[in-house]
């Protein structure tokens, strides 16, 4: 009798893939408690571990001892309706209580940092924009700021304000996506439809300006790709009139509603010290009461010339994170009104011929323009040797870009500091001690985008 062979993955019939080793990730998964080190076991306490392993082993008190057969390790994902992308979480449960949790990522790893080394600086925007696909303009902005720092060029004022306009619009659309998915994850399915209704309006504006609904490649080193079209003020004003009453509707539907509050208040609590130790930024950090927002504390673009409040929570729970994002939409609307007033005239990109391509009409007239266009689009512009890091405040936290250049037209090393990648480390702390039924609410409130987690 021949031994049964492992079913191949490309045969056409519906043979059930019974071999679990095909999808198991070995050492990356959550291991059972009798074989993990003392340091791993101490994670269960949700504490920020600052003692050595020997001390941890010595100090595991008997009261914390949980027999092996009282716990169960379950797997959630990577295909799951509520994990915001391909996130896999393994949880150790004692009954309904979550003891340890471990997020396993890498299911969307695209080799974007490798791709960044292959593409030129002008093409780099198309790559980074697909990392955080809910707020792509922020990734493009971080990349462009870093390249401009290496090039040592100054971007014209109009380009700076256009960038602010577009990124704040993108912040609104990203937070609306959060509200929609958060609502749906918690069962408020109508919120999904409302969120998408508003988001479509913002996407309509973004498409009018950039040409695409998503992954725009609009913010490029040197400025922006094209000027704002005629009638943009009316479009923005229409949006700014339409959205606030709808936000008030959401307040009625969600914020004041007892069921929503019961499900989110006191769930997934984290404190500032843990957040700081884990490198967490963005709404998660602000929910704990710590007012840190790069737009105000380390301003970039022209954020020091606009007035806005940094929205801060009190309890560090899921409800605070939801309320912060809702109010950040309101703050962004306030910023947009100011941008409308203060938008200067001028160039929308720096006029350095070596960096920005010439206007298309001039290509017919001038040989030099044709040559510059050709060189920039085929070979790319060269960036002096050096290294730089620039960061922006994306809807998820600090989004940074570290580029090492070697004097050629391609980055030598491009690394994006994705806020979701770092923020995901708070998941075990948020879930510890909570119920399994709250796990979805917790993940949703962290609002990870797996594209920038896995890159």
């Amino acid at each position, binding site marked *: 009798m021949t031994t049964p062979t492992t079913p191949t993955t490309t045969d056409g019939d519906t043979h059930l893939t019974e071999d679990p080793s095909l999808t198991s990730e*070995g050492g990356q998964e959550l291991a059972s408690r009798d074989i993990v080190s003392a340091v791993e076991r101490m994670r269960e306490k949700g504490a920020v571990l600052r003692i050595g392993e020997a001390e941890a082993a010595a100090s595991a008190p008997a009261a914390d001892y949980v027999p092996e057969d009282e716990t169960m390790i379950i797997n959630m994902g990577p295909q799951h309706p509520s994990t915001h992308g391909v996130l896999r979480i393994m949880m150790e449960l004692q009954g309904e209580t979550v003891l340890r949790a471990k997020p396993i990522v890498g299911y969307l790893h695209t080799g974007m940092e490798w791709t960044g080394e292959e593409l030129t600086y002008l093409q780099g925007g198309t790559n980074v924009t697909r990392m955080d696909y809910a707020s792509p303009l922020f990734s493009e902005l971080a990349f462009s700021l870093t390249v*401009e720092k290496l090039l040592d060029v100054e971007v014209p004022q109009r380009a700076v304000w256009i960038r602010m306009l577009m990124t704040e619009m993108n912040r609104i659309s990203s937070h609306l996506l959060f509200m929609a998915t958060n609502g749906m994850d918690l069962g408020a399915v109508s919120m999904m439809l409302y969120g998408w209704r508003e988001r479509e309006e913002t996407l309509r504006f973004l498409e009018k300006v950039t040409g695409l609904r998503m992954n725009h490649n609009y913010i490029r080193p040197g400025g922006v790709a094209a000027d704002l079209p005629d009638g943009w003020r009316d479009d923005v004003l229409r949006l700014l009139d339409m959205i606030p009453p709808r936000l008030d509707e959401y307040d009625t539907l969600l914020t004041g509603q007892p069921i929503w509050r019961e499900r989110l208040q006191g769930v997934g609590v984290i404190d500032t010290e843990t957040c700081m130790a884990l490198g967490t930024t963005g709404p998660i950090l602000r929910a704990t009461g710590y007012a840190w927002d790069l737009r105000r504390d380390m301003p970039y673009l022209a954020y020091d010339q606009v007035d806005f409040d940094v929205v801060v929570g009190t309890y560090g729970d899921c409800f605070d994170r939801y309320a912060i994002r809702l109010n950040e939409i309101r703050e962004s609307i306030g910023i947009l009104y100011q941008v409308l007033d203060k938008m200067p005239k001028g160039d929308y990109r720096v006029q350095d011929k070596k960096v920005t391509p010439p206007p298309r009409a001039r290509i017919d007239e001038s040989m030099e323009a044709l040559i510059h266009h050709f060189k920039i689009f085929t070979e790319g512009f060269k960036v002096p040797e050096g290294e730089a890091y620039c960061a922006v405040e994306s809807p998820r936290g600090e989004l940074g870009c570290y580029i090492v250049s070697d004097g050629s037209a391609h980055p030598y090393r491009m690394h994006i500091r994705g806020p979701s990648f770092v923020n995901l480390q708070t998941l075990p702390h948020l879930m510890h001690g909570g119920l399994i039924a709250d796990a979805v609410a917790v993940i949703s409130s962290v609002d990870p985008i797996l594209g920038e987690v896995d890159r």
Partner: protein
Amino acid sequence: MSDTTDPVEPVPDPLPEMMHGVPVGWSHGQRVLHPSREQLTGLIKTLHDDGYHMCLDLTAVDYLTHPGRALPDGIEPERFEVVVTLLSHRERARLRLRVQVPGDELTVASLFDLHPGTEAMEREVFDMFGISFEGHPDLTRILMPEDWVGHPLRKDYDSGRIPVQFKGAPAGR
């Protein structure tokens, strides 16, 4: 008004060459420290006491095919560099640390004890470059499958591209 994120510190004159016993460089207005691998842990502790409480980012660079980079006197360029970015909320300033790691001794002390948030970042560096971190509680791959061979972001790693023909050519599959 330039739109950089780091406040451009007035570069002091004469340039201080050392800070906490470690050579200092400047890169586009950003102070960069160059500790050795042995100095790293002590420096991180000192900086933590100084107010650099948050480790924003930990990554690595493979300088194998780089033509040549500027380093302060006394620092020998090695094949790999581990780059750590710290943040001080009080001073609203970032600080970058660049640690040289030789290609034949790929270990660095882990920052996990003081900055637990480096756990995922160090795993990513291990996965992509093969640099091990001593003292890390769980040094496994994070982005690639567990049985993957090789470290993709190294410069001598095969790209894995497939040749793509132009439209109209018969598909190879």
